[in-house]
């Protein structure tokens, strides 16, 4: 049985950011993710906005971490080669009363240290967003705000962490944790056991359940559900800016979000739920999204919706909507990175630094690794290359000359690279997240059988065993009558 200095439980953007941070130091660490891939909990049910930090109450943990995390993104995107765009945010006011709220946000933002915030008028907004609703009067403009693809960020963190020595293990559902007499922990998963000196609990919506395995009951959690939808790239009134309405008391409201890949996401609703697994879409939520975005962009063509999805924000109850990042008061060496609701994406890199400091305070020696490599190699994206580069690539490897996903121009070469990647893709959705095969307007109607057959060939598994995502999500179930392959 391997012993680690640190075991991180949970492979979302928070857990992988922590793994990435840990990989900078001379220590041993592993990350355990219950899913078949990393980044498939709250991380994938997310709009991808890196909130700059005008929302949290000044002085709160969230305020500090949010602003600090958001500021780390541009450099991280360069080092780890993930996509980032800088569309900025409008928080739009429609009434005079809204203006007071916007000014309040401005004040929060300035106190929190967000740069370049300004209140702008209708004309200034319309210069950027000609399709904006005519009753939009003014907005808080946050020009530094960026947008990322959250699962791409999680994969980038995990791959870089792994390259620097952190073990990233999927399909590891933690079923028991024991604090042993020598102070170390024993962690049990269905097929393995691990021991470690420190546990970092980044288990998202299940952080309270994981904590309870070792007898900790310091907080309770509930998910706040959100519906989201994705619109096609070829849309006439496509927004260039992330646009929120002036917020209500509980949520940031329904926004339209330009994505890294040229789509538009509309999200999200906010409803407290009991079921931590029900990542379903609900008809009233979807309608609320369409109605909500039409208040900002009345001409937005709802027939361009190509996908609906949902996410569950992990909320620690009775915690003022703040994060819960602290060492357990009852079990030493057990560190919580819990309640990472919005703005979890923006905060992840700073949460990782915070957890590093907590580990340091808890007595773990954090000596920088001299051979730490901060860079992650850029993956080949065929569609982004010049025609000469494409030609050269095909000559080098004909698999790049075979288009698998026509909507997103994804080649077989890219799919094979994803399957053989640092954090390998073993499912249809894992391939989709890494390559975009199946992300487009046909939603895998044309390419699914091809991707299944490539996965089957590369993994040496029958096509009937290939899953969409979680175990049990096979898309095929046996041969037709007399069908011999």
């Amino acid at each position, binding site marked *: 049985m391997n012993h680690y200095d640190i075991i991180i439980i949970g492979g979302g953007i928070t857990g992988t950011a922590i793994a990435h941070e840990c990989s900078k130091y001379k220590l041993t660490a592993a990350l355990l993710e219950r899913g078949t891939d990393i980044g498939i909990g709250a991380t994938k049910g997310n709009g991808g906005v890196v909130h700059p930090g005008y929302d949290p109450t000044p002085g709160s943990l969230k305020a500090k971490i949010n602003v600090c995390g958001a500021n780390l993104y541009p450099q991280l995107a360069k080092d780890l080669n993930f996509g980032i765009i800088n569309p900025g945010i409008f928080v739009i006011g429609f009434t005079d009363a809204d203006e007071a709220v916007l000014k309040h946000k401005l004040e929060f933002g300035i106190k929190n240290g967000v740069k370049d915030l300004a209140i702008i008028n209708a004309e200034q907004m319309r210069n950027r967003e000609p399709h904006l609703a005519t009753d939009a009067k003014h907005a808080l403009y946050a020009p530094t705000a960026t947008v990322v693809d959250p699962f791409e960020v999680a994969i980038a963190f995990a791959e870089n962490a792994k390259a620097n020595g952190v073990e990233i293990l999927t399909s590891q559902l933690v079923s028991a944790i024991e604090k042993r007499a020598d102070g170390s922990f024993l962690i049990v998963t269905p097929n393995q056991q691990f021991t470690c000196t420190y546990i970092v609990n980044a288990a998202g919506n299940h952080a309270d359940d994981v904590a309870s395995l070792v007898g900790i009951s310091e907080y309770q959690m509930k998910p706040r559900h959100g519906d989201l939808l994705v619109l096609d790239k070829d849309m006439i009134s496509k927004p260039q800016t992330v646009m929120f309405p002036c917020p209500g008391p509980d949520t940031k409201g329904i926004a339209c979000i330009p994505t890294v890949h040229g789509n538009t996401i509309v999200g999200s609703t906010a409803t407290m739920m009991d079921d931590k697994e029900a990542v379903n879409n609900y008809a009233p939520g979807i309608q609320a999204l369409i109605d909500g975005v039409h208040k900002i962009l009345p001409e937005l063509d709802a027939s361009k919706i190509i996908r609906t999805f949902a996410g569950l924000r992990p909320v620690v109850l009775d915690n003022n909507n703040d994060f819960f990042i602290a060492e357990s008061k009852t079990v030493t060496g057990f560190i919580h990175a819990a309640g990472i609701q919005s703005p979890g994406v923006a905060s992840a890199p700073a949460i990782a630094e915070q957890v590093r400091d907590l580990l340091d305070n808890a007595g773990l020696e954090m000596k920088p690794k001299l051979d730490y490599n901060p860079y992650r190699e850029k993956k080949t994206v065929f569609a982004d290359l010049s025609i000469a580069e494409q030609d050269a690539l095909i000559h080098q490897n004909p698999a790049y000359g075979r288009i698998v996903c026509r909507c997103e121009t994804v080649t077989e070469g890219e799919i094979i690279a994803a399957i053989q990647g640092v954090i390998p893709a073993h499912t249809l959705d894992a391939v989709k997240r890494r390559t975009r095969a199946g992300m487009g307007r046909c939603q895998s109607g*044309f390419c699914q059988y091809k991707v299944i057959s490539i996965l089957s060939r590369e993994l040496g598994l029958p096509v009937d065993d290939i899953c*969409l995502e979680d175990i049990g999500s096979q898309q095929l179930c046996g041969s037709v009558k007399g069908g011999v392959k």
Partner: protein
Amino acid sequence: MKQLNYDVVVIGGGPAGMAAALKAKETGATVAIIERNDELGGILNQCIHSGFGLSYFKQELTGPEYAELFIKQVAAVDIAVYLKTMVIDLSGERQVKAMNEEGMLQIDAAAIVLAMGCRERTRGAIKIPGSRPAGVLTAGLAQRYVNIENRKPGERIVILGSGDIGLIMARRLTLEGMQVLGVYELMPYANGLYRNIKNCLDDFDIPLHLSTTVTNIIGYPHLEAIEVAKVDENFKVFEETREVIPCDTLLLSIGLIPENELSQKSGVSLNPRTNGPLVNEALETDQPGIFACGNVLHVHDLVDNVTLEAEQAGTAAAAYALQQNIEIGVSENRPTETKPSEIKTAIPLSPGENVGYTVPAKMTIPSSKEARILFRVRKPLEQAEVVIQSGATILYQGKPRAFKPSVMEEVVLNPADINGSEQPITVSVREVKK
């Protein structure tokens, strides 16, 4: 990188592309077909049922048989066929950027025929609530799995949508031993052809539930059940009719959308009613020298009609190309029919009462040729007549009969009927008392 040049480049080697290429070749033009799949034939290759060719070949063929007749003709003439080759860009100046295992290709064409076909609408497009499990797929993908890959998508199947592919798959899956529990259709009438309702559902005792839709998808990681409910004429759910049906597969046959990504890259304007290019009577788009036919132009119910339309586009594209060659001095080779230069005007052709769309959407007059007008009604009509008029002048009036949205209608106008028109032309289908 390969640089190539043809008079006519046909994008897509399905039934439309092959028919267009063959007609273009007849005029003496140099022709290439670019096909992304391993073989010509397009979606016909997975349509192993019969019922193709009744009007064009006057015999009943399967999809692969229908395709084969064209594949042989293409092989018999000098048409360059690029298989496993994907067009990834097209400019308004008719420059094609394509790729295959050998590298990138840049092809200059005097004329282009768009024949890329269509794709299926997905779950996202109709926003069905619920979980997002394995076991939900489009009918065409299921057809691919069963007919080409030899794999079953499940055992207990529900089909949403009464489009023809869904109906065909209901029978196909039944014959393969799967249990098809029912077909659910949001509209109060079936969307597929009458013969498919009869042959694929009625003959196999598969129930068709009209004015009923899927309101929830249940189960994760694999589909376990769906919830269905009846809807009123505004598609509002009757709450008391909600019913959960255990199943492991949901097939979606909820409509087809022309695939016009390349058309849009080249600057071609689309008709919001068809999602296909706006074309004139020669099937030329608003980008000169770019023509469109088949399901990329509008969704057809019969391949025979695709073939006829494509032949028209192929002929027109070749005529354009050869005319261009004369004008730029590269060819002495006169097309069979050169147009004298005369002042022509385009007048709009649009759908009137009860008509969903028309192809073409504009007419060039004066014209020396018959004009073929295709359209569909929006809803079933028991007794109605086609009326085509320009302003108040009636150009054509049909005999009273029944109309269905599933059937594409055709009226052929003589040049004499239209050449005097000055006002926009509308196509209506007016209800008449019995």
